[in-house]
Each structure stands twice: as structure tokens, then as C-alpha cells.
């Protein structure tokens, strides 16, 4: 094959260190930058979880490495934990990180449609992260009204005592929205417009479908929250009364605007995480994804339905009770496409041939956890059951069984899987498996007890249980959860060591160590710029594994049919 070096590549060599690695417009660099940024923010998010867990298990004691903690600080830390994890870890890691790195490669393009816009989206996210960190140093502390920032608690500073911190929270969130609006535009345009020849929509890797759906859902749902954020800022700083009841405002308007975005947002996070599992599973099961088209249609259906379920967060909010049953019905309907996707993933495993690599373990563990998260959602989607469960720890456990697995297990599945492509070296598989089993064990150890805490009636966001006689018996559950949380943090050590060691001293990887079919594996590791020395040509969908009568159990998307015939004939 004649590899003609395009003029572009020459240019890249000419660029200085700053243009090449810091203000790069190369989607692969930007993807890694997003991952690094979200890893740093994850330290903050994880540390805040540590403080929360310690406080809940041993309320009388001072948190080692932090100090004693009071109830107002606790509320601020809970707020930071939620905000950081959703907006500054999950989204940048799954969308900014994996989305950026993989979408152009998987569709056969040399870069995103708008590389400079892409760089700008990353730097905007950086500024957003810095603004949020800065808010933690505001005089009265950071925002303390929860990541949901219900009004009037967040609207009038006298209720929390927090002034600048909440304003900076609004600013950081707005910048994050701007960053992902830019990114979303790039994702959709690239996936629709820059596909290689032969890459029809129904031949796209499911990860790309998930990312596009997530991007579209985000783009269409974030508007009302931007409007609400502007209104909140105006209320706080210009004395408007959008949400102030004493002047005719309505606190429920905030809830509607927030959740109109907030619900689709969780699918924006969940779909890409599931998408990673959908890429990893067929490779290590050596079997096509069961029901590709069903999964695509279910994904689109879930994306659409996600816009009409939001008020299930508001059943007991004081909104008209007649709205409860309609939203219950739409919410229950959204379980159908997800059921289809989950059943299809399980069917993919049936009569397959599974190699339990670290990546596969994470994908399977993520799926298993997500299933529990999904079914516990029914208790919340049913209006009557939600009367009991709303605002309790049951909700906390539910969303940690959905958001956490897709981000953590899905994310690590992706990291162990694509690491060779990103860095040209292999991660240690044994330590990867240790990382998985310890994490899986401790993760469940944290959140199963928390389901029970919620069923026992404990509200959320409480500094300690001792005020209520009915909750005191639940205290041991918090201790178990915290011990497991400490275990979970410790379990990340093998990963961190493995990651950095492998980056510099890992075994050099061949270009397709997993024998996978998607386009990124046809290229040398580490990757060049531009990605494809010769524009690829696609002939089939990505999951042709164990096709009968072939000499290999995999069939890359870009392998011409004539070569396939030759391989068949050779048997």
C-alpha cells in the first residue's frame, strides 16, 4: 500500500510544542486533554465523596485529612460532589474524552469537522473547571444548594449565607454548557458529514450512534436551563423576581426548567457509557452485537422519550397532582427501549466465546450494575411508590447504580480497551483485573446498604442521622458503606500505578491487539496526524466476528470483499 504523506502531516511537525500539545486542534490530543482534565476533577469529586462518607459513618469525629465539618460545609460539599461528578467528570470523560478521540477515527475522518472549535470547547471546559474551583474559595464558601440548586434556597443568599460562591457556580455551569454546545455541534456534524465512503449510518459503530444521540439530546435540552440560570443570576444580582414568591415568582418554574434538562442529561451521560460497553463486548465475545438495528432504534426512542418524562422528579413537588399519572406513564415507557438494549447485550453473550480481559470485565460489571440501577428506577417512576422513595437515600443509590457504572465501569472498560491505540503500549492485564474485582466489590458494598438506608426512610443530603429516632438503627449501614468507600478509593491505586507505568514502560502494542473490526484498529499505534494516510473505504458493519468459513474470526470494516473471498476459498 502506497502511503502518501499528506502536506498536513508535514505542517504538524513544523508546529511548536505549544501548538502541538497544548493548544492542539488534533481531536486525539483534545480527547486526551479532556480525559486528563476530568481525571483531575475526579480527584476533587472523589475527595468530596470521602468527606461525605466519613461524616455519615462517624459524625462525631473529624475527617482525617480535612478536619471537622459542620452542616453548612457538608451541604456545600454535597453540592460540589454532585456538580463536579456530573458536569466536570462524567460528561468531559465520556463525551469530551472518548467522543473526541474516537468519533473521527470510527467514521473514517481525519479530524472533527471544526478542529478549532473543538480546541475552544476544551479550553472553555478548562475555564469552567477553574471557575468552579475558584468558587470553593469564595468568602462564604461554594454553592450549598445542591447540584439541583432549587429556589428560593439558591435564589436568595440569605437562606444559605452563600453569595459569590453560588454566582460562580452559575457561571461555571454556563461555561460548561457552552463547552458542550460547541462539542455537540462538532460531534453531530462530523458523524453526519465526514463519514468515509461506504460508511452508511447503519454501519456506524454503536458508540458513535450513542454519542450523536447524546449530543443531540444535550443540544435540545440545555436551552431551558440556560434560560433558568440567567433568570437565577438576574434574581440574585439585579433584583428580578422570577423565582421569588413574595414578588409573584414561582419556585416550581425553576424545577420545571431544571428537570426539563436534568432528565435528558442523565441519558446524555448514560448512552455513551453504554456505547463503550457495546464496543467492548463483541470484541471479547467474538460475536456480532445482537440486534444492531433494534439497538439503534431503541437509542433514538430513548432520546426522544427522555424529553417527556422530566416531571417524575417532581411528583410531590406541589405541581398539579393530575400531572403525576401521565408522567408516570411516559417514564415507564422509557424503560422499554432500555430493556431492549439490555436484553440485546445479554443475547450477544449467548453462545459466544468470551475472553475475560480487564476491559471485558469492566463492561460486564458495568452492565450488571446498570441493570440494578435501571430496575430500581421503576420504584421512582411510579408515582405512588415515589411518594415513599422520593428524596430518600433510595434515589441516591438508584442514580449511583446508573450514572456511576456507565462512567466508572464503562469508562475504565474504554480506557483498558483503547489504551493501546492511544499510547501505543499495553496496560497490565492482571492488575487491570485486580482493579476491576476490587472496585466492583467495594462499589456494591457502598450502595446496596444505601438502598436499605433509603427504604428505612432516611432523607437525602442530611449531615447525620442522629436527629431522628427512626433513623438511628440505620447507622451501621452508613459505616459499612463508608468502609467500602475507603476500599474503593484504595482499589484505584493499582490502576493509577498501572496507567502511568504502562504509558512509559508498558509493552509496545501492535496496532490491533484485540483483533477488532472498527476503523481505528486499522491504523498504527500511536496514531498520526492526519489519521488516515489513505482515505478508508468501508464495506460492512463493525461487528462481523466469527463469520463462518473464514480463516479468521474477525472481519474488519475496511477489508475489501475480494480479499474476503480469497480467505474463504483458502479454507
Amino acid at each position: 500500500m502506497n502511503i502518501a504523506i499528506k502536506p498536513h502531516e508535514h505542517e504538524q511537525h513544523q508546529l511548536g510544542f505549544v501548538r502541538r500539545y497544548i493548544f492542539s486542534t488534533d481531536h486525539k490530543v483534545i480527547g486526551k486533554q479532556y480525559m486528563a482534565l476530568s481525571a483531575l476533577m475526579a480527584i476533587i469529586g472523589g475527595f468530596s465523596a470521602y468527606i461525605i462518607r466519613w461524616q455519615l459513618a462517624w459524625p462525631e469525629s473529624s475527617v482525617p485529612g480535612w478536619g471537622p465539618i459542620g452542616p453548612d460545609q457538608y451541604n456545600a460539599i454535597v453540592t460540589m460532589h454532585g456538580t463536579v461528578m456530573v458536569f466536570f467528570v462524567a460528561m468531559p470523560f465520556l463525551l469530551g474524552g472518548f467522543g473526541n478521540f474516537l468519533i473521527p477515527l470510527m467514521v473514517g475522518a481525519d479530524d472533527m469537522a471544526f478542529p478549532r472549535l473543538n480546541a475552544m470547547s476544551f479550553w472553555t471546559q478548562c475555564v469552567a473547571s477553574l471557575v468552579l474551583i475558584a468558587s470553593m474559595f469564595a468568602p462564604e464558601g461554594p454553592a450549598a444548594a445542591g447540584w439541583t440548586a432549587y429556589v428560593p434556597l439558591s435564589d436568595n443568599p440569605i437562606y444559605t449565607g452563600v453569595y459569590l460562591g453560588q454566582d460562580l457556580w452559575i457561571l461555571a455551569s454556563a461555561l460548561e454548557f457552552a463547552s458542550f454546545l460547541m462539542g455537540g455541534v462538532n460531534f453531530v456534524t462530523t458523524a453526519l458529514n465526514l463519514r468515509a465512503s461506504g460508511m452508511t449510518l447503519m454501519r456506524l459503530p454503536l458508540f458513535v450512534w450513542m454519542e450523536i444521540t447524546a449530543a443531540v439530546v444535550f443540544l435540545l435540552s440545555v436551552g431551558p436551563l440556560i434560560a433558568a440560570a440567567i433568570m437565577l443570576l438576574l434574581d440574585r444580582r439585579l433584583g428580578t423576581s422570577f423565582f421569588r414568591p413574595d414578588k409573584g415568582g414561582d419556585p416550581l418554574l425553576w424545577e420545571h426548567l431544571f428537570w426539563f434538562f436534568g432528565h435528558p442529561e442523565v441519558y446524555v451521560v448514560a448512552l455513551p457509557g453504554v456505547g463503550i460497553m457495546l464496543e467492548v463486548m463483541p470484541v471479547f465475545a467474538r460475536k456480532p452485537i445482537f440486534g444492531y438495528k433494534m439497538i439503534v432504534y431503541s437509542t433514538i426512542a430513548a432520546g426522544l422519550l427522555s424529553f417527556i418524562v422530566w416531571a417524575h422528579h417532581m411528583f410531590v413537588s406541589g405541581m398539579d397532582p393530575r400531572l403525576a399519572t401521565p408522567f408516570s406513564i411516559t417514564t415507564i415507557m422509557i424503560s422499554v427501549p432500555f430493556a431492549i438494549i439490555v436484553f440485546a447485550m445479554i443475547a450477544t453473550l449467548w453462545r459466544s466465546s468470551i475472553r475475560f480481559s480487564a476491559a471485558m470485565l469492566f463492561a460486564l460489571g458495568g452492565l450488571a450494575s446498570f441493570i440494578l440501577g435501571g430496575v430500581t428506577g421503576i420504584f421512582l417512576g411510579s408515582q405512588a411508590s415515589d411518594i415513599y422513595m422520593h428524596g430518600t437515600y433510595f434515589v441516591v443509590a438508584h442514580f449511583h447504580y446508573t450514572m456511576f457504572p456507565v462512567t466508572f465501569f464503562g469508562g475504565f472498560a474504554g480506557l483498558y480497551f483503547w489504551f493501546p491505540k492511544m499510547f501505543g503500549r499495553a496496560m497490565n492485564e492482571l492488575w487491570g483485573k485486580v482493579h476491576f474485582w476490587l472496585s466492583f466489590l467495594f462499589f456494591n458494598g457502598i450502595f446496596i446498604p444505601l438502598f436499605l438506608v433509603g427504604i428505612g426512610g432516611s432523607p437525602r443530603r442530611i449531615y447525620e442521622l442522629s436527629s431522628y429516632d427512626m433513623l438511628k438503627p440505620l447507622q451501621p449501614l452508613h459505616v459499612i458503606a463508608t468502609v467500602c468507600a475507603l476500599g474503593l478509593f484504595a482499589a484505584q491505586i493499582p490502576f493509577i500505578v498501572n496507567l502511568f507505568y504502562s504509558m512509559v514502560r508498558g509493552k509496545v502494542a501492535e496496532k490491533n491487539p484485540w483483533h477488532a473490526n472498527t476503523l481505528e484498529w486499522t491504523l498504527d499505534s500511536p496514531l498520526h496526524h492526519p489519521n488516515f494516510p489513505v482515505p478508508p473505504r468501508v464495506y460492512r458493519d463493525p461487528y462481523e466476528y466469527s463469520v463462518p468459513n473464514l480463516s479468521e474470526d474477525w472481519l474488519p470494516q475496511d477489508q475489501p470483499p475480494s480479499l474476503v473471498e480469497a480467505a474463504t476459498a483458502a479454507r
Partner: protein
Amino acid sequence: MLSGWMPPNVSTFGGQIDSVVYLILYIVGFFFLLAEGLLIYFSISSRRRAPRQAHYNRGERPREAVWILVPALVVLGLDLGIDSAGHHAWELEKSIRPPSTIEIKVTAKQFNWEFTYAGPDGKLGTPDDVTVENDLHVPVGQVIRLSLNSEDVIHSMWVPNFRLKQDVVPGRAIPAWFEATKPGTYEIACSELCGFGHYSMRGSIIVQTADQHAKWMNDNVLHAANTSASAK
């Protein structure tokens, strides 16, 4: 199964809520065990054993797709059943507020609960109303109608023993009700983040026999012209 964990229910509509919770538990429990069971079983039975190859199957033929679509339809059907049961239980607590002579105005504020009884004149909103802090005394076996108000931010009145939960929103008077079936003291928790004192915003509902309650009302609400009295 859950009853060990949920506080005992002592309200008339609470049983219906519990029935829905249990219905959901059985249905999702079944699907949970089925899905996880298959996932584990297939993972183990399909572990790689050379030279056995995976079975090439794309799941796109109708007779294959039905294995996914039929269970999904079953899920849909069961879900709609859950919603129907849920609707009845929901209406009971939220839409149908039985008439009663006992009306209490509940005021939530940072960080406690106030309960206002109609005074001797029997009408709420008149100068002889009596307001008590934190403890609501009510008679057993009678419908108690509540009007929930907030002085400042959104709170939420959560009485686990009654399966009663209703957010309390400033600028609104939100109706609620309950009828307790057993005397006792039952805690109220605030279940919506309302500031630094959220965790300790505890109240209690003291359900008394008719006689006990009549005496309590006599001592605390009916005889004095005080507009506010602390509970004994």
C-alpha cells in the same frame, strides 16, 4: 421482605402505597434475577474454550428478534399494570381529600415546623388560632386535613409511618391529609434540602386516643386566648 426495613405503616392510605411498592418489587425482582442470571450464566457457559468458536448470530431475523421484543413487550405490559395500581394509590393520597372538621395549618421554616390549630372559634385564620412548635397532636381514626405553607424556602413534609410526603413551597398553600390508625408518636423529617439545619428539622405527630386528645385540646388550644402556646 421490605417490611423489615420500612417503618410500620399506620395510615389509611399507606397500605395502598406499600402494595404498589411490593408489586414493583416482585415484578422488577423477577426481571432483575432473570437478566442477571442469564448474564452470569451466559458469561460462564460462553467462556472461551478452544477450538469452540462463537455462534455467528446477528439477531436480525424476526425469529431471533422476538427473543428481545417479546420480553420487552411483557415489560411494557407489566409497567402499565404498575402504573394503573400506582394511579389508584396516588389518587387516594393526593387527589381525594376527605372532608373533616379538623384543619391544621402547617408552616415549615428554617428549621422547624409550626402547627396552627383553629382556636375556640373553630376557624383557621382568626386571631384566636393557637400555634405550637414541632409537635402535632391529633386524634386517632379521624381525617386530619393539612394546609402546607413555607415561610422561606422549599421544605418537604415527610412522615414515613404514614407514607405521607409533600413538598412545602413558599407562595403556595398545598393541601394534604392523613388518617392515623394507631396511637403513637411518629416522626416528621424534612426531605428537601433547605439549608444548614435541614438534617435536624424534626417534627413529630402524636396520635392520641379520642379522650387523650380531647384533654390535650382543652388544655392547650381551646380554653386560652393565647395566639401561640408551646406544646406541653
